[in-house]
């Protein structure tokens, strides 16, 4: 059983805020294949196409038949715990600050032996609890590590001290949602409150406009409306001065979405408005809130932990009927990669969400399936809890992703012809 995480006491303002020392992040190029899968929540190992051997650590040749035909294949992770140890000494600062730390040696049913971090609910080897399930998670350095989980976890298993180092669970954390006026924004707020968030600050660009749904979420005791206009540098700066030092998670869901591409609209005003929120809005927000988050990334069990960007599957390849919107999301995607690189040294995870069309007013003419705001909100909370960094929620996003990975040029031609 994992002891449920208790609400942390108020921080003593006299004490220095602990700074982040990242876990070892160096990996070889081949080993990054595990990270690539873990970033999307999958546990994959190298598998030989010729003889079927599953091998670990990752290599440049099959250790059985020497074939170079090695492919990453998803693993069930089922295995036997061979041995376990509790570390009381470490040569690395990250672990030294978090001792004692449990490790296990697991013999996967599919063949290889893995060194893993052990979840607290997995007993020591020989305690009659031999079966474990190995999964991959991103650690605070953003690199994949393997974790030995219990086959059947308890209700509070997410509160495990080691696992919380790998994830960004909103429980007892303080979250900024940049736009509360949309149905999606409100769904995100409700999902965060349900997940146990301590405070949810909700951005509201034009407080004088009374829009539907805002009153409902404002009635929740955890929720506070705050003025935030991403097109206005001073507005962003003022809010950061007020709450920047307290925010643990930023969810940037503000977006402007208009349809059409180049020829169907004269001038650049609409495209500029899209860019001003979707790209420059992210840039303004990142410049003001990024440093504050970085400074608090090791601040106790509920310190600053993640930054979520609402992008679009159109960021991968332009969808001409929504051409300028696609371009602004592609720009935002590129900037989000930059943000990820800059947040990495502090251990702040940047999570990019690539939904297909959301079931909202700006996708009125898009045929189903469309993503319900509530479903997308739950996917965002799940991404925080699972510690992944790229999420493609919904059937449309999954299908486009598959086509894009298969052949981006073919997808470009298909999208030019209308999509299907």
């Amino acid at each position: 059983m994992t002891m449920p995480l208790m609400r942390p006491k108020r921080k003593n303002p006299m004490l220095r805020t602990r700074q982040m020392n990242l876990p070892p992040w160096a990996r070889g190029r081949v080993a990054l294949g595990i990270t690539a899968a873990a970033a999307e929540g999958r546990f994959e190992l190298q598998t030989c196409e010729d003889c079927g051997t599953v091998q670990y650590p990752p290599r440049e040749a099959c250790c059985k038949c020497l074939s170079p035909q090695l492919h990453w294949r998803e693993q069930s992770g089922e295995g036997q715990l061979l041995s376990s140890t509790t570390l009381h000494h470490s040569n690395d600062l990250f672990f030294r600050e978090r001792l004692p730390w449990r490790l296990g040696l697991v013999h996967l049913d599919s063949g290889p032996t893995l060194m893993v971090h052990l979840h607290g609910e997995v007993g020591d080897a020989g305690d009659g609890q031999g079966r474990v399930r190995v999964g991959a998670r991103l650690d605070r350095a953003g690199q994949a590590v393997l974790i030995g989980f219990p086959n059947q976890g308890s209700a509070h298993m997410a509160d495990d001290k080691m696992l919380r180092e790998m994830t960004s669970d909103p429980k007892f954390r303080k979250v900024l949602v940049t736009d509360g006026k949309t149905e999606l924004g409100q769904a995100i707020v409700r999902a965060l409150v349900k997940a146990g968030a301590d405070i949810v600050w909700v951005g509201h660009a034009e407080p004088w406009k009374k829009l539907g749904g805002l009153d409902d979420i404002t009635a929740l005791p955890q929720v506070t409306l705050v003025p935030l206009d991403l097109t206005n540098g001073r507005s962003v700066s003022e809010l950061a001065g007020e709450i920047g030092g307290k925010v643990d998670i930023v969810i940037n869901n503000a977006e402007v979405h208009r349809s059409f591409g180049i020829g169907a609209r004269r001038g650049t005003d609409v495209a500029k408005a899209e860019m001003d929120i979707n790209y420059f809005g992210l840039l303004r927000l990142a410049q003001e809130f990024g440093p504050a988050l970085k400074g608090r990334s090791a601040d106790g069990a509920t310190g600053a932990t993640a930054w979520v960007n609402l992008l679009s599957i159109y960021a991968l390849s332009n969808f001409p009927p929504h051409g300028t919107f696609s371009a602004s999301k592609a720009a935002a995607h590129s900037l989000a990669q930059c943000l990820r690189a800059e947040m990495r040294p502090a251990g702040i995870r940047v999570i990019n969400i690539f939904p297909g069309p959301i079931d909202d007013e700006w996708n009125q003419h898009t045929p189903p399936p469309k993503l319900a705001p509530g479903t997308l909100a739950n996917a965002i909370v799940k991404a925080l809890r699972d510690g992944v960094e790229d999420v493609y929620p919904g059937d449309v996003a999954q299908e486009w992703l598959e086509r894009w990975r298969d052949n981006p040029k073919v997808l470009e031609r298909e999208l030019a012809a209308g999509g299907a």
Partner: protein
Amino acid sequence: MPRQRLSYEGVAVAVPVTVPYVRYSTRTAHWFIGQAVEALVKASGVAKEQIDGLCLSSFSLAPDTAVGVTQHLGLSPRWLDHVPTGGASGVMCLRRAARAVQAGDADIVACVGADTNHVDSFRQTLGSFSNFARDASYPYGSGGPNSIFAFITSNYMRTYGATREDFGRIAVDQRTNALGNPHAMFKKPLTMAEYMAARPISDPIHLFDCVMPCAGAEAFLVMSEERARDLGLAHVVIRGAIERHNAFADDPVMVRGGWLVDRDDLYSQAGVAPAALDFVQTYDDYPVIAMMQFEDLGFCEKGEGPAFVRANTLTFDGSFPNNTSGGQLSAGQAGAAGGFLGMVEAVRQLTDTAGPRTVPNAQLGLVAGFGMVTYDRCLCTGAVILGRSE
């Protein structure tokens, strides 16, 4: 049947030298190698110019290798080797040097294991020790070999019923041996109570199961017996030697080492049974590995290690003298010199220069090596049997 190998007949191992260990040093590995070669020259009377072979093992030379060392020390060998097998490099340097001498590729080979140890170098070495360590073990707690050998020890204890006291017997008796070795880093006796009360490092590994990283060097010369006699150098002969890499790769956790694959070969080369040996110098990065060597080198059956240490005294004057210098557990681990420690000690024992820790009437001794934890176990194993020259 594999082809009958050439014996190691006619090869002498002489001039065991130690560059005294220090916990930390501001010197480089080159300094320790230089001191070792100078000690070889002084102790043997062989001029530096006559050393025409160099076989080197060192972790802390980078970016240099044995090549850079020749210019650094003004050596001009006609045979050169750099052996990267760490704890097995003493055995492996000896095997390579012996073949070079037999073939006439070199007349006098200096074998040197040396490393420096700066205040932060151990941590830095761990993170970049191997590709697999970087990718698959260092990110898991960064305990270095401690956590790997904790897995191996804990599994061994559960499988074969060993207790911490059994490993304590190995550590305590080695400390007794170290008290007779002026070069040993540890100068005070160790009691079983102190061993048991030591702080935990990575369960079940506690402080006195771990070696202390330090700086230092060990070295010896390899030449023909004839040459050794001409030079008037006390020497020993090689009765048999084996090596193996990545043995039992399918064992999910290490319970046996490569010695088991080749031990029949070793004893048949020497024409003796294990019982004929007067002492062994096991590789003791952790006591469990010393215990595995008792089994895998044929002194007892697999799983009988615990009973074996309970039934024997492992001191230099005991029923089964093991690591008579104190081993790395009590003498210290000077990087790759740790792989030479047993070899240098065995030559001292068999040339009557082991002082107060002399094994009475020793004629034949075994030296084992074990090196390179790339991921979840050490990959290199080796062993030699040395005997007094006729």
